[in-house]
C-alpha cells in the first residue's frame, strides 16, 4: 500500500477541501470536524466528479404525531453531494444517503506532529 505526502493539505482548516492527483487518480482531501479524510473523485452512480461537489448539512425529515413534515439538520457539514445528480455521501463512512448499497471509499489521512500530511492507499 503506497503512502503519499500531501503538502497541499497541510494546515487545511475544518470544513476545507483540496484536490490531489496520485498516480493518475484524483482524490478530495476533506477536513471533517478536525479530522482529515480522503475520497476518490468518482461517484459510483455514473462516475461523476464527486469531489467537485460541495459539502452540505445532513438534512433529515420526520412526520410528527400531527402528521406534519418536519425537516431538520441532523449533522452540520456531514455530506458531500455529487455535482452531476446530487447523490449525497456521508463524509465519514462513504455511504450514500439514499441507498447504502452505494458507497465511496473513505481513507483516513494521517497528520504527523510536525503537521506533515500522509495518505496511505
Amino acid at each position, binding site marked *: 500500500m503506497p503512502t503519499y505526502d500531501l503538502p497541499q493539505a497541510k494546515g487545511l482548516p475544518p470544513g476545507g477541501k483540496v484536490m490531489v492527483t496520485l498516480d493518475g*487518480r*484524483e482524490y478530495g482531501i476533506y477536513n471533517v470536524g478536525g479530522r482529515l479524510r480522503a475520497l476518490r473523485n468518482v461517484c459510483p452512480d*455514473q462516475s*461523476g*466528479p464527486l469531489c467537485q461537489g460541495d459539502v*452540505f448539512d445532513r438534512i433529515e425529515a420526520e412526520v410528527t404525531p400531527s402528521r406534519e413534515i418536519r425537516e431538520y439538520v441532523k449533522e452540520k457539514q456531514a455530506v458531500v*453531494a455529487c455535482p452531476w*445528480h446530487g447523490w449525497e455521501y456521508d463524509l465519514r463512512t462513504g455511504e450514500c444517503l439514499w441507498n447504502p*448499497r*452505494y458507497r465511496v471509499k473513505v481513507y483516513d489521512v494521517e497528520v504527523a506532529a510536525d503537521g506533515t500530511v500522509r495518505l496511505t492507499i
Partner: protein
Amino acid sequence: MPEDNGSGPSTAQSSRLVVDTDAHYYENPRLFGKFLDEPWRTRLERWSGLYYAPIAAASRTHDVLVGGRMKRKDLGLPVTDCRDGVLEIMKYLGTDVSVLLPGLLLGIAEISDKRRAVALCHGFIEHMLAETVDPAQGIYTLIVACNQSPSDAATLIDRHASHEGVCGVGMMTDAPFLPFGDSYYDPIYEACVRNHLPLVLHSGYGGPEGHESGYGLQSYVENHIAFVFNNMRQMTSIIFQGVPERFPELKLVFQEAGVFWIPQMMFRLDSEYSMRRPEVPWLKKPPSEYMKSFYYGTQPLERVPNEKYLKYVFEMIDAERTLLFATDWPHSDFDAPMVIERMSFLSEAGKDRILGGNARSVLRFAGKGALPPPQPAAPLAEARV
C-alpha cells in the same frame, strides 16, 4: 456496481460514434425577434426577463438543482446557448452528434396563446438554423411543431425541412389539449411524411402549478413522474386512434420517460385491446406490434438493484433495434454514455446500435453521423457470375 471501481472520473470515453438524441439548448427568446414580423419582433427583443416570460416553464417554481447539490455552470461548464457551448459540452460528455431540443420551448405545448406559440416556434427554428446548427460538427436541431395550430406547424415544417441542420420535427407531450391521436394533428403528421422527417415526441411536466397530468403533485420528486404519464397518454391516443395505420411511413420517437414504461404499455394496451377491439377499428394488430415500430430515448435510464431487470426489459422491447441513447444534458437527471457502455448483457454491436447506429437510421443526419449512401446493386449479369 455499488463500490467505486476506480475506472476514473468524469465522462465515459468511447471509440464508437455516440449520438445524443436529446440534448437541450437554452435559447434566448430575445434573439428570435429579428426573424419575426411586428408586433412579435419588438415583444421578444424587448422581453424584460423579469416577471414575464414568454413561456412560464414549470421548473421555474422548483429549485431543480436541489440547493446547490447539483452543479452545471459552477463546474466551469458553459450554458448551452451557443454553438461553441454545445461543442464544449459534447466534448465533456463524449458525444459526437447532438440533437438540440429547446429549453424554454419545452413548455410550448402548455401555453394557451396560439399566436404566441406560433411566433416562438417560428423564431426558435430561424435562430437555430441561422446561428447554432453545424451539421459538419454534428449539431442538429428539430423543428418544433406547435400543437396550438397544426396548419401553422405544417407550414413551418415545409419551409425548413430541407435545411441540413434539421434532423426531425418535435412536439412536446405535456400537452393539456387534444391528445395526439386526434385527427386535428394530421397536418403535422402529413408534413413529416411529405418531408421524410421523423417526429420526436418529447415528454415534459407542468410542475405542481401546471395543468397537465401531473397537476397537484406537490414536490419536485412527485411531480417529475408526469414525464411518464404524459408519454403514456399520448402513446395510448396515437395507437388507438390509428396514427400508425393512417401514417405508416411516419417514424415516431418517444423521448424522456426511461424504458420501463414501454413494456408496461405494450402489455397493458394489448390486454385492453383483447377485450374491446371493436372500439378501435383502425387497428389491424395488437398495440404492442405498433409499439415495436416506434423508437425510444433511453433517458432517464432507471437505476435498478439488479442488472437482469434491465436485461429483461431490453429483451421485451427489442432494445437493440428500438432504443436511441439520449443524455438530456444539462437537466438534473441526465445520463452519461457510460449507462449503456457498462451494461454487461449487451454485445458490442448492440451498444453500437443503441449509442448511435439506431439514431443514424431514424433521424436525418446530413453531415456528421450521416449513414453512408447505399451501395448500388451489382449489375444482374455480374451477380450471376
